[in-house]
C-alpha cells in the first residue's frame, strides 16, 4: 500500500472506535429498544380487568452506589473492578395503577439494575478526554465495550446466525433423490418459530409437500394449510404457487390426495355455490388442523385453538392478527414455488455460508433478548405479588409489589455465567487481558453456533463473501478452526431498520402490493 492510502486508515480510526459496533448497538438498545420492549409487553391485569397497571417511560440514571453509612457516591469502573461491584445503572419506570376507571398518578418505581457497557452513552466515561480518564483511574487506550459484573470484566461476543425471516432452500441428499426443504426462521418479539416446508416422496400414500411449525405435532400437508389460510378453491392454490405446468400438476396431485383424506361427499358439493364450497373447504381444513392440535376436545374448542395456532405460531413475523392470513398464504405459495424450482433443478439451493444469509447479533441484540425475558418474569412476579396483597385485603401498591431483585439477578446471572436465554452457553466471556491486542481481538470476535465436535467442512472454509468483512487469517487452530472468526479492520456493522419504513418507501416509489395484485 502506498503511503497515501494509510492516511485513509488513520482518518477512519480517528473517527471510529475499534469496538464501535458494541457501543452503538448497546446505545441503540438503551435509548430505543428497552422502551419498545416495555411498551409491547402485555400489561398486568388483575381480577378480570378490575385492576391494571399502565407502564410509561423508562429512565436510566448513571451508576451510583449506597455505602454502608448511607451516603451515595458515583461509581466509576475502576472502583467497581476493585471492590467486586457490578457497574450497573438503576432503572426507574413510570407505572400507574388503574382501578376500575380511575387512574392513579403515575409514580417512578425502581425496577432493577441494568449492567452498563463501558464507554457507552450512559457510562461515566463517555466523552472524557485522555487526562480526565487517567484522573478517574482508567487506561485512556482501553477500548471499552464490555461489562463489569461482580468485579470481573465480561465481554459479550457477537453471535453469527442464519438470517431470520428469510426463506432458505436446501437440498437433502443427492440431486437424484428429489428431496428438498425450505426453512424460514421467523422471529417476532423474541419468539423463534421455525417453519419447515419439505418435498419428499411419501413412504406409502400421501402428499409430497408437507409443512411443520411450532405447537403442531408432526407435519401437515401444505394444501390443507393453504386451504385453512383462506385459499378455498383449487384454482387459487394452484395459480398462486406457479404458472409452470409441471409444478401445477404436482399441486393438483397433492390436492387430490388430501381431498381423499377429507372424506368429501361429491353430492354435497354439487349443491353448493362457489362461495359455499370455498367456505366448506376452509372449514374442513381448519378442522383437520384442529384435530392435530387439540385432540379429543370439543369441536368448538378445536377450531378456536387451530385458528389461534395458525395466527400466532405460523410465520409470526408477518403478523399475528387474523387479517394477515392471506398474506401468509401468499408467502407460503412463494416458498412452495421456490422449493419446486429446486426440485426441478431450475434454481440452486441457497449457500448457507454466503454472508447474505447470515446476520450478526451484537451485544445490544443479545441484551434485548435477555431484557425481554427478565421483564416478562418481573411482570409475572408483580402480578403474583399484587394478587397476594389483594387476597389479604390490602390496597395494592405498585411500589411495594415490585421486587427489583428479580430483574437485576436475572440479567446479572446471565452475563456473569454466559448462559443466555434460549439455551446458549458461552455468550459472555471473561475479557482477555493478556495484552492490548488480545483485548481488542476478543472484543471483535464472531462466534458461530455450530457444534465444535462435528466436522462441518463447508462452514469452516473461508468463504469469498467474507472478503472485507471477516479476517481471512485470524482463526484459532484446532477444533474451533473456522467457526470462531474475527472482524476485519474497517468493518462497520449496520443496525437493522424497521421493515415498515422500507415498505412504505418502496410503495411510494411504485412497487405494487402483492396482496392487491393477487386479488386483482
Amino acid at each position: 500500500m502506498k503511503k497515501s492510502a494509510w492516511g485513509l486508515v488513520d482518518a477512519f480510526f480517528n473517527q471510529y472506535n475499534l469496538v464501535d459496533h458494541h457501543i452503538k448497538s448497546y446505545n441503540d438498545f438503551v435509548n430505543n429498544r428497552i422502551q419498545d420492549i416495555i411498551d409491547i409487553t402485555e400489561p398486568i391485569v388483575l381480577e378480570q380487568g378490575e385492576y391494571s397497571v399502565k407502564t410509561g417511560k423508562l429512565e436510566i440514571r448513571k451508576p451510583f452506589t449506597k455505602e454502608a453509612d448511607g451516603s451515595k457516591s458515583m461509581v466509576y469502573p475502576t472502583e467497581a473492578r476493585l471492590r467486586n461491584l457490578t457497574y450497573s445503572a438503576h432503572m426507574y419506570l413510570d407505572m400507574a395503577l388503574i382501578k376500575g376507571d380511575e387512574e392513579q398518578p403515575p409514580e417512578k418505581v425502581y425496577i432493577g439494575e441494568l449492567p452498563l457497557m463501558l464507554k457507552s452513552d450512559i457510562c461515566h466515561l463517555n466523552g472524557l478526554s485522555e487526562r480526565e480518564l487517567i484522573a478517574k483511574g482508567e487506561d485512556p487506550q482501553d477500548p471499552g465495550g464490555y461489562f463489569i459484573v461482580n468485579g470481573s470484566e465480561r465481554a459479550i461476543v457477537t453471535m453469527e446466525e442464519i438470517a431470520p425471516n428469510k426463506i432458505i432452500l436446501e437440498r437433502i441428499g443427492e440431486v437424484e433423490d428429489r428431496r428438498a426443504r425450505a426453512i424460514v426462521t421467523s422471529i417476532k418479539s423474541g419468539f423463534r418459530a421455525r417453519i419447515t416446508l419439505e418435498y419428499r416422496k411419501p413412504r406409502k400414500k400421501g402428499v409430497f409437500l408437507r409443512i411443520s411449525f411450532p405447537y403442531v405435532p408432526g407435519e401437515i400437508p401444505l394444501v390443507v394449510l393453504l386451504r385453512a389460510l383462506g385459499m378455498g378453491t383449487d384454482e387459487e392454490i394452484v395459480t398462486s404457487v406457479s404458472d409452470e405446468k409441471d409444478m401445477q400438476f404436482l399441486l393438483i396431485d397433492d390436492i387430490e390426495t388430501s381431498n381423499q383424506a377429507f372424506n368429501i361427499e361429491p353430492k354435497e358439493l354439487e349443491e353448493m355455490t362457489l362461495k359455499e364450497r370455498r367456505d366448506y373447504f376452509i372449514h374442513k381444513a381448519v378442522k383437520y388442523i384442529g384435530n392435530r392440535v387439540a385432540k379429543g376436545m370439543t369441536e368448538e374448542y378445536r377450531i378456536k385453538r387451530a385458528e389461534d395456532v395458525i395466527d400466532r405460531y405460523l410465520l409470526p413475523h408477518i403478523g399475528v392478527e387474523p387479517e394477515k392470513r392471506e398474506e401468509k398464504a401468499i408467502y407460503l405459495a412463494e416458498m412452495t414455488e421456490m422449493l419446486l424450482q429446486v426440485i426441478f433443478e431450475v434454481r440452486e439451493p441457497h449457500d448457507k455460508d454466503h454472508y447474505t444469509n447470515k446476520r450478526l447479533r451484537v451485544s445490544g441484540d443479545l441484551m434485548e433478548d435477555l431484557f425481554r425475558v427478565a421483564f416478562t418474569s418481573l411482570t409475572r412476579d408483580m402480578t403474583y405479588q399484587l394478587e397476594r396483597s389483594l387476597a389479604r385485603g390490602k390496597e395494592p401498591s405498585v411500589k411495594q409489589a415490585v421486587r427489583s431483585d428479580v430483574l437485576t439477578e436475572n440479567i446479572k446471572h446471565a452475563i456473569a455465567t454466559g448462559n443466555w436465554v434460549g439455551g446458549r452457553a458461552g455468550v459472555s466471556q471473561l475479557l482477555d487481558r493478556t495484552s492490548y491486542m488480545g483485548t481488542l481481538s476478543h472484543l471483535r470476535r464472531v462466534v458461530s453456533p455450530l457444534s465444535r465436535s462435528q466436522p462441518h467442512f463447508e462452514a469452516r472454509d473461508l468463504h469469498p463473501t467474507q472478503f472485507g468483512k471477516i479476517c481471512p487469517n485470524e482463526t484459532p487452530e484446532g477444533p474451533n478452526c473456522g467457526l470462531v472468526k474475527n472482524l476485519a479492520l474497517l468493518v462497520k456493522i449496520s443496525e437493522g431498520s424497521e421493515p415498515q419504513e422500507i415498505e412504505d418507501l418502496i410503495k411510494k416509489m411504485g412497487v405494487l402490493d402483492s396482496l392487491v395484485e393477487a386479488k386483482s
Partner: protein
Amino acid sequence: MKGILKKISQINFGLMSPEDIRKMSVTKIVTPDTYDEDGYPIEAGLMDPRLGVIDPGLKCRTCGSKGGDCQGHFGSINLARPVIHVGFADTIHKTLRSTCRSCGRVLLDNNEIKNYHEKIEKMFKNEESVNNLIKEIYTVARKDKCPHCEEEQEDIKIDKPVSIVEGNYKLTPSEVRERLEKIPDEDSLILGVNPKVARPEWTILTVLPVPPVTVRPSITLETGERSEDDLTHKLVDILRINQRLKENMEAGAPQLIVEDLWELLQYHVTTYFDNEASGVPPARHRSGRPLKTLAQRLKGKEGRFRSNLSGKRVNFSARTVISPDPNLSINEVGVPEIIAKEVTVPVYVTEWNMEEIKKYIQNGPKVHPGANYVIRPDERKIRIYEETKDTVIEKLEPGFIVERHLKDGDIVLFNRQPSLHRMSMMAHEVKVLPYKTFRLNLCVCPPYNADFDGDEMNMHVFQTEESRAEAKSLMRVQEHILSPRFGGPIIGGIHDHISGAYLLTREGSIFREEEIFQMLKHAKVPLPKKTGKNWTGKQLFSLLLPDDLNVVYRAEICRKCDECLKKECKNDSYVVIEDGVLKSGVIDDKAYGAFSGKILDHIVKEYGTDRAREFLDSATKLAIAGIMKKGFTTSTNDEEIPQEARERIEELLDKAESRVERLIEAYKNDELEPLPGRSMEETLEMKIMQVLGEARDKSGEIAEIYFGMENHAVIMAVTGARGSMLNLTQIAACVGQQSVRGGRIKRGYSERTLPHFQKGELGARARGFVHSSYKQGLDPLEFFFHAMGGREGLVDTAIRTAQSGYMQRRLVNALQDLSVNPDRTVRDNRGIIIQTMYGEDGVDPAKSDYGKVVDLDRIIEEIRIKSSK
C-alpha cells in the same frame, strides 16, 4: 505387601440372594437422615459409622482400622415391597415368556428339554460358549399351551423400562417373583441361569444392599458445609419412599395410593442403578443437573473401566518440556537432576552391594546420587533425612530395600502422546543432566513425532528387575530402528545431518589432517593412524563403515537422467561402497535418512542393532562436525533469479493464461472436445488445471536453471534434508493454482468468486491462480485465494487428529488379543484361528525388506561380489 501367591482358577458371575445380602451387611439402614444436629452420623442412618470411615483419624467401628485403611462395609435396606432390578428387566421378560404361568416349567416338551440338557453338558465340557444356544432356546420356547400342565399362555410384553404386562394386566413385582420362584432348578439351567450361583427370583430385589461410605464419600466445601455424594442423595430418596410405603401399608391406605408409592419406589431404585435408563426421566439435582448413579460411574470415557482400570495415573512418572541434544546417543535420554532426585528406583540390599548403597544413603536425599527411603522387611518405610542418615546406615542389613535416586545407565520408559504406534513408547538409558528439560537425540524424533516447539513427554521409571530386564532386551530404541509398518528405518538422520553429510562427502571437499582429527574427536570415533596427507570427505566417512559392507545405490540427488552414467555420473550420485570404503557417490538422505536410509538399513540387518546404533551415533555427529567446519546458512538471496529469468517466466505464464482464455472461448462456443465420460464443465476444468499446473512446473524449471549446487537452499531441497524444489519454485517463480476440495476456487458470490470479477468469469486469475511468486508478493485478491486454500489445510489437520484417535482406539480394541502361536497361526484369546499364517506369508514386516519377503537383488549382489574376489 508380602503374601502367598494364589492363582485364580475361575470367576463366576452370579446373583446375591436376599439372605446373602443380609449376611454380609453390618447393619440395617432405616432412617433417611444422615447427620444429626451436632454433625455426628446417626445410627441406622446412611452415614452410620459401622459402614466405614473416610475421615483420617476416626476409627471404624466394625473392623477397627483407621481412616485410610478401612475399605468400608455394606449395609442393607429392607424394601417394603419387592422391586424389579432394571438391569435384569430383559432377562425377566424373556424368562417369563419361556415358562408356564401356573406350573412354572419351561415351555418345551420333555424330549427337547433332554436334548438341550445334553447339548449344554457337552458345551460345558468343551469349554465352549453357550450364549448362542441359550438365545436359540429362548426363541424356541414360546408356545401357546404349556406341554406339562396344559395351561393357556398369554403374551407377555415389557413396558419400558421395568413394567411387565401380561395381556392387558400389569404384573406387580411380587407376582413376577412368585412365578419365578416356581421355576425348578433343571429348567432354569436351560434358560441360562446356573442354579448353583443364581436363582431367577433373586433378580427381583427384596433387600437392597447399601454401599459403604467409602464408595460415596461426602465432600466438605470451603464454606464448611458438607455436600453429600449423588448416591447418598438417591439412597435418601429410596429410604423416604420406603418408609412412607411401609407406613401407608400398615395404616391400611387405599390400593391406589399403595400402588402409586410402589411405582415411585420402583422409579427411585431404577434411577439408583441407572439414571440414563431409556423411558424414565432422569433424576435431577436441585440445580437441574442429572445425578451420576451407579451405571454412569462405570460407563463411557470418564467411567471406571476406561478411566480408572484400563488406564490409571501412576507414581514414579515425570513430565516436562523436551529439548534437543545432539551429543547424546540415540539410546539415551537426558533427565533433569530435579526429576532424578524425585523418582526413585528400589534396590534390594545384599552383601555385595552394601558398600555402594551405603554411599547413596550417605549422600542423602538432597545430593545426587543419593537415596530417599529405606524399607525394612516389616514393611515400614523410613524417610532418610540429613540428620537421621547415619543411624540408618548403621542399621542397614541385607534384605532391606533402598529407594535410590535415578542415576546414569538406568533404564526408563519414554513416551509422547498420542501414542499411536509401539515406537511412541521406548526404553532409554538415563543420563542425568542439569537444568529442567528432558533431552532427546534428534534422530529419535520421527517415531515420537516430536518437535521442540514446546512439546512435553512422559517418563516412567521401572520398579522391578523383571520389567527393567524386559525393557532392556525388547524395548530399547536401537531395537526399533526398523519400522514394522514398511520394513525400513524410521530412526535416522534428519535435516542438518543430511546436508552436513552431503557437504562432507561431495567432490572437492578436502580437509587437512588436523581438521579431520578434530571432526573425529567430536564424533567420538576411535582415531586412525596419521597419514600426513590431506583427506577427502569420502575417506573420512569410510572410517565409520564396517569393513565388509558392500552397497550400491543411487543417491537422493540423482537427476534420473535417461542414460545413467553410473560411476561417471556428473552429480556424483552413484554411490558405491566396497569393503567398507566409500568409493564414489555422496552421502545424503538415501544413505542414513529417517525414512529411506539404505546404508542404515543394511547395517541393521547384517550387523545387528548395536552396530547400527554406533554407526548412527557417529555418522550424525560427524555430519554435524562437518557442517560446523564448512559453515551453512541461507537467505533470500538463495531464491534470487536474474532479470532474464523473470522475463522468461512472465512470458510463459502469459502464454498459459492466453491458452486458458482460448479453452474458455472454445467452451463457450461449444467447440470443446469433451473427455470420455465427463461433462463439458468437468472437461474444461480439468484442462485448465492441467495447463496452469504445467505452467507452474515449467516456470519452476526455468528458475532451476539459474540455481546451482552452490545454492544452500537447493542443497537442502535436493539432498532431501528439508523442503523440495516445489518450495523453491513457489518462492522464486510462481506460486501456482490454489485449490479447495480438489478443484479451483468455485464458491463465492453468484456466478463469480469475488465481486471484483464479472459474472461468469472462468479465467485463471478469477478462479484462484496466483501469478506472482512469494518473493514478488501477492496482490490482495491472490492473497485472499491463497488464504482460502490455506484454511482448508488447517481445517483438515484439525479434523484428522480427532478422527485418527477414534480409529486407532477401535483398531487397538479389535486387535489386542491376537497373537502368533507356536504353530504359526494367528489366534485370538478364545483360540479361534484368525489367520493360518501371519500376514499370509509368515514374515515380520520389520525384518522384511521394505515389504518384500526376500531381498533377492541383495543376495545376488552379495554372491557376485564374493565370487569376484
